[in-house]
């Protein structure tokens, strides 16, 4: 057991819990505080927190493993650039209107937008999908905690999973969105600097960028080039999946509701996009190349980061890197857990089971949901064995296939109606599942079929049925109208 590294990890856990209990009182003020952090988050904090929300175990361990095995060009194009452009498209087309929606309607979940814009059936289907997809996403994340804990700290896989599961559930439960946001700020810094820092360390260690890449390409000739073993459809499918996930995943959308105002929300997304680009391009370039040199025959590619940092970092930085890996796990799982609780309590419990529920009752139920999903996912993670990158990649695509089209159409197309919204959500998801299990296209290319089907369902369903009511059209208009008064010109 490595005591210094373990001490740093324990200190990181204590800091997470301190932040949660610090915000406990503020989070208890009501739903706006618990779900939306009172819409008080500035662009810098929100930008780093958004970056942290995106960079999960998938990015920190799984996709880095794909860079090791399949080449840096794939991960650069598919994850780095696609997530960057996805955030910018979100900033341009989604963030402003949804931030206004939250203020006008007092809602904090993406499916609440579906309920108001389309109908409650569309929102119910979307909520059920979130409650299926997100816990399935959390399981491999926690499995990453077990892998990292057992390899780096020398503790049992199961104990590492339980330890991380316990801490992240507690800080989400106690502090809600405020706690999630401020822990994500810390986690975002940790992840960014320890990935980019390890890459720079590797470049320095191997005598510069050219010698490093020369040795890496000697091991894997396709490290920098486009890998001919990978189908063109896979390249395009992963990229489109990441793009649509960033644009429309409910746990990322929830963050947009927390910004102080529309412009701060937009600025935060620009910051996130820039951080994501540098993280995936520069970070992956050095770390995956160093792993090829240090361990050319690595079979468990999810350990790419761990192998390199174990070799190149001092014990202190190893402890910090370990905290960064756990941060990658906890930030995404925390945000997803909160999104699950918001979906269930607001769009199922309050809409169908107890419409007269008070804010306090709803939050109490949400905390129960957080506890139940947290425990279940932790137990399931103990028995998970598949590659993190593959599972996360598929869930990313399933989410994008279901939500991207109804979200964009709901904001920008006044003719989109409830039938189109319902068909688009269900059609996109069902097609994704059918295409995946029928193996008609390569893995990760499913979204190339399911997304156009979702769009076709939206168009056909909307045009063949009656237009939306005047109130719905007026809602769309109000999303694009600046709420604040016109500022006088500076002279």
């Amino acid at each position, binding site marked *: 057991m490595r005591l210094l590294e373990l001490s740093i990890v324990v200190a990181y856990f204590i800091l997470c819990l301190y932040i949660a209990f610090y915000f406990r009182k503020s989070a208890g003020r009501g739903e706006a505080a618990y779900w939306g952090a009172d819409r008080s988050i500035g662009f810098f904090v929100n930008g780093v927190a958004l970056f942290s929300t995106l960079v999960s175990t998938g990015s920190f361990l799984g996709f880095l493993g794909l860079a090791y095995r399949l080449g840096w*060009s794939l991960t*650069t*194009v598919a994850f*780095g*650039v*696609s997530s*960057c*452009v996805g955030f*910018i*498209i979100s*900033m*341009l*087309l989604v963030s*402003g209107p949804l931030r206004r929606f939250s203020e006008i309607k007092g809602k904090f979940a993406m499916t609440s937008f579906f309920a108001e814009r389309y109908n409650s059936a569309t929102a119910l289907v979307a909520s059920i999908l979130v409650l299926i997809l997100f816990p399935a996403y959390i399981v491999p994340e926690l499995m990453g905690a077990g892998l990292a804990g057992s390899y780096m700290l020398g503790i049992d896989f199961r104990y590492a999973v339980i330890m991380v599961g316990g801490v992240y559930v507690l800080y989400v439960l106690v502090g809600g969105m405020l706690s999630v946001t401020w822990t994500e700020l810390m986690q975002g810094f940790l992840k960014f600097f320890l990935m980019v820092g390890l890459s720079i360390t590797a470049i320095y260690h191997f005598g510069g960028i050219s010698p490093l*890449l020369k040795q890496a*390409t000697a091991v894997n000739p396709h490290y*920098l*080039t*486009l890998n001919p073993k990978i189908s*063109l459809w896979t*390249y*395009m499918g992963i*990229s489109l999946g990441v*793009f649509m996930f960033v644009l429309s995943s409910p746990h990322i959308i929830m963050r947009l509701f927390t910004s102080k105002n*529309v*412009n701060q929300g*937009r*600025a935060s*997304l*620009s910051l996130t*996009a*820039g951080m994501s*680009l540098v993280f995936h*391009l520069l970070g992956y370039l050095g770390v995956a190349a160093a792993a090829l040199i240090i361990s050319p025959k690595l079979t468990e590619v999810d350990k790419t980061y761990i192998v390199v940092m174990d070799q190149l970092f001092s014990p202190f930085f190893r402890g910090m890197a370990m905290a960064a890996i756990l941060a990658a796990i906890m930030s995404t799982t925390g945000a997803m857990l909160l999104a699950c609780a918001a979906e269930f309590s607001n769009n199922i419990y309050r809409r169908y089971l107890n419409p007269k529920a008070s804010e306090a009752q709803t939050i109490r139920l949400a905390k129960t949901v957080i506890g139940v999903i947290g425990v279940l996912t932790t137990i399931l993670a103990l028995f998970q064995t598949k590659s993190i990158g593959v599972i996360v990649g598929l869930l990313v695509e399933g989410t994008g296939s279901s939500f991207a089209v109804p979200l964009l159409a709901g904001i*920008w197309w*006044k003719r989109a109606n409830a039938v189109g919204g319902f068909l688009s959500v269900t059609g996109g998801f069902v097609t994704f599942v059918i295409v995946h299990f029928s193996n008609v296209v390569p893995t990760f290319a499913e979204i190339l079929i399911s997304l156009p089907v979702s769009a076709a369902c939206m168009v056909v369903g909307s045009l063949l049925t009656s237009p939306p009511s005047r109130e719905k059209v007026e809602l*769309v*208009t109000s999303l*694009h*109208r*600046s709420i*604040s008064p*016109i500022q006088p010109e500076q002279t």
Partner: protein
Amino acid sequence: MQKDSLSKKNPSLCLGVVLIVLWALGYTGLATSLGSLEFVGIPLVTWTMIAIGVFSVIASIIMIPIQSRWEQRWGTEHRNVRGD
């Protein structure tokens, strides 16, 4: 009625469409002979995609005040059109 259009000269929508088209065009490079061209050992397609990413971040920062002004102006015009 024309002023009621959400898409009329909307700067964010214009930039968004341009970026999506550029991003999609970058992928067409993968399917053509451009996919085999390289610069310092890295495919031109990869360089192109990186350039699109950098451009999108810079353009988005410039776009924030421009879009804000458009929304204020559009909001005022829209209220006038509806006779609010």
